C-alpha cells in the first residue's frame, strides 16, 4: 500500500518534471518563488514570459498574493481579483494552461493542487476599415486577428439569446480556436450538424488561417470554385447569420467563413444592401455580365480569328486584319502571351509593397503594353480586350472568386483553340456540369438557378426591395421562414391620405 502511494507520488513528480523539462528548454520559461507577507507561506509562480502580460502580474496578481491572507490554495480565489482563477488536481493540463498564457501557482504544502490565473497578453490590432471589401457607404469596421474581438463585433450586432457560439480547438500543433456561430431556432439543425461534423473531422497539425478550414471542410476540394464565402465585414456576417446561415470564426484570422453559400452570393457585395434596390440590382447585373465577359471574350477572340472569320462584321474586318498583319504569332499564342503578362503584373503587384506595386502596374500596363504592340508581338485590339477582361475580373466583390475566374480563362482559351466556338460551348458545358454537381455543405451551389427556385431569385442576380424579402431563402431550409410579418409591414395609403 505504501509502496503504491509512493509510486504514485513518484509518478506525479516524474510527470511534473516532464513538463518542466520540456518547457525549461525555452528561454521564456520563468519560475520564481515568493513568500506571503501575512502567513509566510512560500508560493511559486510558473509562466511563460512571452505569453503573459507583465502588467497584470505586477498590478493585478502579485500585490494581492503577497499581501492577502494566503494559507491554502483555495484562498487565492478570494484574494486575487480575477474572474479566471482555477484550481485543479489534474497535472496533465499544466503545460497546456501555461502555454495558453496562464500562471501556474503552487504551494509546497499542497503538491497535488495547482492554481491557474489568467494573465494572457492580448495583442489586439486596432480596428481598421475593411480593405478587400471596402465600401463607401456602411460601417467601416473589419475583423481583426483576435477571436474574442471578432466575436465581440458580431455579438454586438446581434445581441439576442438566439445567437449561439460554439468553440472548438483544432490543429494538433496550432491549437487554434474555432467558433461556430448560428441562430438557434432559425438555422437549420441539419446544416449546423454538418458543419460541426466536418469541423470535428478536421485532422491537420497547424491551422493558421480560416482559408485552411475552407479547404479542409469544403465539399469538393478539387474544385477551383470557393465553396465557402469569406468576409472581413462584421456587418455582412451578422446580416447573413440573421438569414439563417452559419459563420465560422477562426482565431488568428481576420476572415470569417460563411456557409452554405451559392455561386450568386460571390457576385454580391454587401454594399448592395446599403443602396437602393434599383441601383444594387443594376450593379449586380453588371458584375455578372463582367464575369461572363471576362471569362469568354479572349477565348471568343481566339476562336473567331482562328476559325470563324465569317462572324466578323465586315466593317470590323479591316481593323482586325490590319492590326494582325505584322504579328508572327497565331492568335492563341498571342492571347496566351498577353494573358500571362497580365497575370505576371498582378502577381508582381500583389507581392510588392503597395507603392512599388502601383508603379509596377503603371510600368507594366502602359510600357509593356504599348511596346509589345509596337514591336509587333500582339495586336492592339487584343491588348484592349485582355485589359478589359482583366478589369472585369476585378469587379467580383469576393477576391477568391476573381482568382477562380482568371484561372478559368485558360482552359477556355485552350478549348477555343481546339474547336473554335464549339470548343467554348463545350468548355462551358463542362463548367456548367461541375457547377451543377457542386454543393456547399450539401446544399446545391448553383441555387436558385438550378434547382430553379423562383422565390430565391429575389436576392440573386437582382435584389428586390426589403419588403419583398420577408422570407428566408429556401436553400437554407430554415426553421423559421418568415423574417418579418409581411402583413404588418404593409401599409396601404390612398392618394393624399395619411
Amino acid at each position, binding site marked *: 500500500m505504501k509502496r503504491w502511494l509512493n509510486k504514485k507520488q513518484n509518478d506525479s513528480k516524474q510527470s511534473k518534471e516532464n513538463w518542466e523539462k520540456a518547457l525549461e528548454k525555452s528561454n521564456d520559461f520563468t519560475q520564481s518563488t515568493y513568500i506571503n507577507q501575512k502567513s509566510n507561506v512560500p508560493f511559486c509562480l510558473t509562466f511563460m514570459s512571452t505569453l503573459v502580460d507583465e502588467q497584470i502580474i505586477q498590478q493585478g496578481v502579485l500585490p494581492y498574493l503577497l499581501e492577502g491572507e494566503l494559507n491554502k490554495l483555495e484562498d487565492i480565489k478570494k484574494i486575487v481579483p480575477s474572474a479566471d482563477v482555477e484550481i485543479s488536481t489534474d497535472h496533465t493540463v499544466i503545460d497546456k494552461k501555461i502555454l495558453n498564457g496562464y500562471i501556474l501557482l503552487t504551494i509546497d504544502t499542497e503538491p497535488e493542487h495547482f492554481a491557474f490565473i489568467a494573465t494572457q497578453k492580448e495583442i489586439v490590432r486596432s480596428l481598421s476599415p475593411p480593405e478587400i471589401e471596402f465600401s463607401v457607404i456602411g460601417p467601416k469596421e473589419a475583423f481583426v486577428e483576435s477571436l474574442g474581438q471578432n466575436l465581440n463585433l458580431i455579438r454586438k450586432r446581434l445581441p439576442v439569446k438566439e445567437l449561439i457560439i460554439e468553440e472548438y480547438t483544432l490543429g494538433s500543433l496550432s491549437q487554434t480556436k474555432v467558433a461556430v456561430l448560428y441562430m438557434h431556432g432559425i438555422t437549420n439543425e441539419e446544416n449546423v450538424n454538418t458543419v460541426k461534423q466536418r469541423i470535428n473531422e478536421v485532422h491537420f497539425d497547424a491551422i493558421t488561417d480560416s482559408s485552411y478550414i475552407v479547404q479542409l471542410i469544403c465539399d469538393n476540394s*478539387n474544385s477551383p470554385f470557393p465553396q465557402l464565402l469569406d468576409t472581413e465585414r462584421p456587418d455582412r456576417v451578422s446580416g447573413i447569420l440573421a438569414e439563417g446561415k452559419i459563420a465560422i470564426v477562426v482565431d488568428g484570422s481576420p476572415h470569417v467563413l460563411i456557409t452554405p453559400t451559392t455561386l450568386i452570393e460571390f457576385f454580391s457585395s454587401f454594399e448592395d444592401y446599403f443602396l437602393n434596390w434599383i441601383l444594387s440590382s443594376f450593379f449586380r447585373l453588371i458584375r455578372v455580365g463582367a464575369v461572363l465577359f471576362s471569362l469568354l471574350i479572349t477565348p471568343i477572340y481566339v476562336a*473567331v*480569328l*482562328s*476559325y470563324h*472569320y*465569317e462572324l*466578323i462584321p*465586315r*466593317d470590323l*474586318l*479591316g*481593323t*482586325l*486584319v*490590319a*492590326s*494582325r*498583319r*505584322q*504579328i508572327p504569332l*497565331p*492568335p492563341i499564342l498571342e492571347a496566351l502571351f498577353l494573358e500571362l503578362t497580365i497575370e505576371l503584373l498582378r502577381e508582381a503587384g500583389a507581392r510588392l509593397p503597395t507603392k512599388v506595386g502601383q508603379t509596377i502596374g503603371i510600368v507594366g500596363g502602359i510600357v509593356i503594353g504599348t511596346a509589345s504592340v509596337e514591336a509587333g508581338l500582339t495586336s492592339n485590339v487584343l491588348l484592349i480586350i485582355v485589359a478589359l477582361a482583366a478589369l472585369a475580373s476585378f469587379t467580383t466583390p469576393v477576391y477568391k472568386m476573381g482568382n477562380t475566374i482568371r484561372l478559368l480563362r485558360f*482552359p477556355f482559351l*485552350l478549348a477555343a*483553340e*481546339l*474547336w*473554335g466556338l464549339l470548343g467554348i460551348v463545350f468548355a462551358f458545358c463542362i463548367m456548367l456540369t461541375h457547377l451543377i454537381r457542386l454543393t456547399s455543405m450539401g446544399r446545391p451551389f448553383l441555387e436558385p438557378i438550378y434547382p430553379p427556385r423562383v422565390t430565391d431569385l429575389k436576392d440573386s442576380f437582382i435584389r428586390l426591395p426589403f419588403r419583398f424579402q420577408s422570407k428566408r431563402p429556401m436553400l437554407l431550409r430554415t426553421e423559421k421562414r418568415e423574417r418579418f410579418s409581411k402583413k404588418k409591414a404593409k401599409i396601404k395609403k390612398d392618394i393624399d391620405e395619411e
Partner: protein
Amino acid sequence: MIYRYFCIVVTVLLLSSCVEKSIIDDINIQSAVAIDLADDDKLKGMILVQNYLPDQAVENIRFTSTGKIRRDLLLNIQKKSSQQIVVGGLMVSIFGDKISKKGISEAIDAYQRDPGIGSRNYLATSSGSALKILEGEYGPRGNGTYLRNLLEHNIQYRDVPETNLHIFLRDYNSEWKDAFLPELRSINNEEVEISGISLFKRDKEIDVLPKDKMFYFKLLVDRHSNGNFLVELGENKTAMVKSIKSKRKIKMSRKNHSQMILNIHINGVVTEYTGKKMSKEIADVVEKELAKKVNAESLKLIKQFQEKGVDPIGFGLVYRSKHRGAIKKIKNWGENDYKNLSFKINTKVDISESGVIE
C-alpha cells in the same frame, strides 16, 4: 480519376489539333466575285480580295482565270494566290450579261450548296462585262465594300427593290414567281451605277428595266417601300415627292378570278417644289397627279411583264393562294392564265408635309 483522364485527352487533342484553321490574316477573303463567259464558252471569272493595309487603307487584289465550271475556275485562281482563298466573306457577286442571257443555273449552284456563303449577299448582273466592274477603283474602303454599300443604301432608302441571295434563290426556285436582280454598269474607272433591274425567267435574263421605272417596280414588288419620285404639274412646275412609307397589297378579285386588284398606298413628303408657294391645294394636285402616274406606269409595267411572260411581282403566289390544288395547274398558269389576267390598280397618295417652308 476523371480529371486526370480529361487532362490527358485535352493534351492529346491539342497535339493532334484535328480541325482545319483559317487564321484571319493567313487567308484571302473574297469580297466580290464577277463571273462571265469567255469567247470559247468557258467561264471567265474574277475574284476580288480586299487587302487591309496597316494604315487602314484597302488595296484591291484581283485574280482572274477561266475554267469549265465554277469549281474549276476557283481551283485555277487558288493556284495564283499566295494564301488560301475563302468564300465566307463574300459581299457581292456579279454576273456578266453574256452569262445571264445564256443562263446562270450552273454558276448559281455553288450559292445554293455552299453553306459558307451568307444569305445577305448581293447578287447583281452587269450591263457589259462583269469583270470590268471589278476592275475599277471605287472609294478608299475597297471595291467589295463599296458595291455592297451602294446596293444596300439604294435598297434601304431609294428605288432598288429588296434583294439578296436568299430572295433571289427563293424566287429562282419557285414556279409561281420569277427572280430579278439589280443591274450594275461601270461608267468609268472610278464610277459605277445601278442601271436597272434584270428580269429573269428561270435562270435566263429576259429583260432589263431602265432606271426610271425602278420606283414603280419597287412599289409593286416590295410590301413596304420608299423612294423618290418627280411629279410634273405643268407650267414648268415640278415637285419632288419622297415616299416615306408605301404599302401595296395584291388581291384577287372575288367575282372574277382573272382579275387582280392592286392597292397601293403612298405616304410622302414634298422635298422640292419649283413653283412659288406650296399650299394644301397644290398638295392635293400633287397627290392626284402622282396617283394617276403610278396607276398608269404600274399598269404599263405589268402589261410588259405579261407580254414577256415573266412574273417578278408574284401574281402566281396570289393565284395559288386562292386556288385549291393549284399545284397541278402550274402549266396552265404559266401558259394561259397569267397572260389573260386583267389588272386594276388603286393608288392612294397622302402628302403629309412639305418641309420647313410653305
